[in-house]
């Protein structure tokens, strides 16, 4: 097997075991601009077949001196159609890697590792689920919504963002939920404010029995606090800087109360979906967890 797969080779080239994540060199089937975001549809049958909502993929990028992959939530999979097995990812351009990816178009080749991480656990009994997304955090929730509906759960969506064009795919959202509500900080779309301003009302009116959330860490902490107050189970998909995405570098940790005590769990491996009430929100990015004097320059 070649050490430099890619152009010239038939795509998708896939390497991995019978189950678990694989590495695939895949063709881009479609590129679409959605509001402020870019959506890529990628032909990756092995990944599509193995993925569950809440999992992510890690894409290689080119240009400058970049060496690491970039993680993106899977926002949908399709097992059918002329191209058997595609996945969708949504990009917000924030730096060189996302800029390079947003420049891909049909027939370009991308290098994908996935599906990675722990997805959203689904309710065992029919339940009313409130899905709360911030910005591109809505992406994995659309995939989750489709699966929840398919299994007969009630889905209500609450998506927020800074501006209307950063509300991801409102139309698709409306199609997949019993109710949808949008908030924007500038009031350009939906209710002016934040998701947490309207969450209590919606939770009450829909009779939410479980909350699923994905978005910036600050939003997740606030949603987690509201869920706790209402004693609602809450699963959050967290975001931390990732070096490897596959569990080996220990850069993506989140302080977490495990059965066996406090731990720094890996967002890419034990997460990205975590039980909100176990996350030690106040200790994120602080030395509060360190449990021992932190030595500066203790590089590894």
């Amino acid at each position: 097997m070649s050490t430099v797969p890619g152009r010239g080779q038939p795509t998708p080239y896939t390497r991995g075991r019978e189950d678990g994540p694989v590495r695939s060199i895949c063709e881009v089937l479609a590129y679409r601009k959605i509001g402020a975001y870019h959506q890529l549809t990628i032909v990756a049958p092995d990944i599509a077949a193995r993925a569950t909502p809440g999992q992510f993929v890690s894409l290689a990028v080119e240009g400058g001196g970049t060496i690491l992959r970039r993680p993106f939530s899977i926002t949908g999979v399709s097992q059918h159609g002329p191209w058997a097995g595609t996945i969708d990812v949504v990009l917000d351009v924030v730096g060189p890697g996302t800029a390079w990816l947003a420049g891909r178009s049909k027939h370009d080749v991308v290098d994908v590792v996935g599906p990675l991480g722990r997805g959203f656990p689904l309710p065992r009994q029919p339940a009313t689920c409130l899905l709360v997304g911030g910005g591109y955090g809505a992406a994995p929730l659309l995939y989750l919504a489709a699966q929840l509906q398919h299994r007969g759960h009630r889905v209500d969506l609450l998506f927020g963002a800074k501006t209307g064009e950063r509300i991801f795919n409102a139309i698709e959202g409306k199609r997949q939920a019993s109710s949808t509500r949008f908030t924007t900080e500038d009031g350009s779309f939906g209710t002016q404010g934040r998701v947490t301003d309207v969450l209590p009302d919606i939770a009450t009116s829909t009779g939410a029995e479980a909350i699923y959330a994905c978005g910036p860490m600050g939003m997740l902490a606030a949603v987690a606090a509201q869920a706790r107050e209402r004693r609602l189970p809450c699963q959050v998909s967290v975001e931390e800087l990732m070096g490897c995405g596959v569990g080996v570098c220990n850069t993506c940790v989140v302080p977490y109360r495990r059965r066996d005590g406090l731990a720094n769990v890996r967002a890419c491996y034990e997460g990205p979906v975590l039980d909100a009430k176990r996350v030690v929100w106040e200790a994120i990015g602080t030395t509060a967890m360190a449990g021992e004097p932190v030595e500066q320059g203790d590089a590894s």
Partner: protein
Amino acid sequence: MSAERRPDLRVSLSADPARPLELPNPIVTASGCFASGREIDRFFDIGGLGAVVVKSLTLEPRLGLPTPRMVETDSGMLNAIGLQNPGVDAWLANDLPWLAERGVRTIVSLAGKTVAEYRTLAERVRGQPGIAAIEANISCPNVEDRGMVFAAREEATRDAISQVTRVSAVPVFAKLTPDVTDIAAIAAAAVEAGATGVSLINTLSGMAIDVETGRPRLGGVTGGLSGPAIRPVAVRAIHEVHRALPDLPIIGMGGVRSVPDVVELIMAGASAVAVGTATFADPFATLELVEGLPDWLAERGYRSVRQLRGAVQA
């Protein structure tokens, strides 16, 4: 390539017949870049690697440093993990048996805060089945010397390494930092203390600042620079130590990504080559080097990878 003419990848990492270390191929994992082994074993059978060097273990479990713990830099990355690890006892109980059962050649990396801790650590792992060698990570702060890393000084190097070699029945490698004035002198000190070989190089001390916020980009303020950016420093350090101590086995590492990179480090003087950051970019990186090396050698008429060791004409 016919089976007969397949180049021989076997390497020996010990000149001491009492403590041999033979690997089926020279590709090993770099400490701290391969977690417990299970994570990458999801992708392929890690038993095919030359050896697995595990994350440095400390006496007590460590939660490590606050995030952000990494930042990508030009052709490299900085990390400040803070030696997060389950502690040596938990590792012996939960991780080593899994590695041993799968037949993985395991090199255990040990990190002490004091000279005495190195001895305790070496005692804990002594006689545990499945441990092929010890890598003493002495590129970490010595709390008895104002946090100066052990491998920054010849004396501290000698002190820490001799604690390990005294109680170990397996080969001992001293993992050195490149952030020193004279790395060959530090390597010599490790040898005096009974080290079987040295591992070169650990990360370079570096720092990055977010100019918009004025804050360091790492929770630990400074961190370790790894990746292709540092390969020229690794090649130089390996060459320097190999020239000074030609018989000393060296596990080389620093920015290796491709088969020619592996060959470059071996030509500089490495007997085996560890791969760290490249695994972050591609979980198959180590395996693809094991697979790609024989072709590279065969195409050029080499019959054994050992022919290349220290072969640079300098």
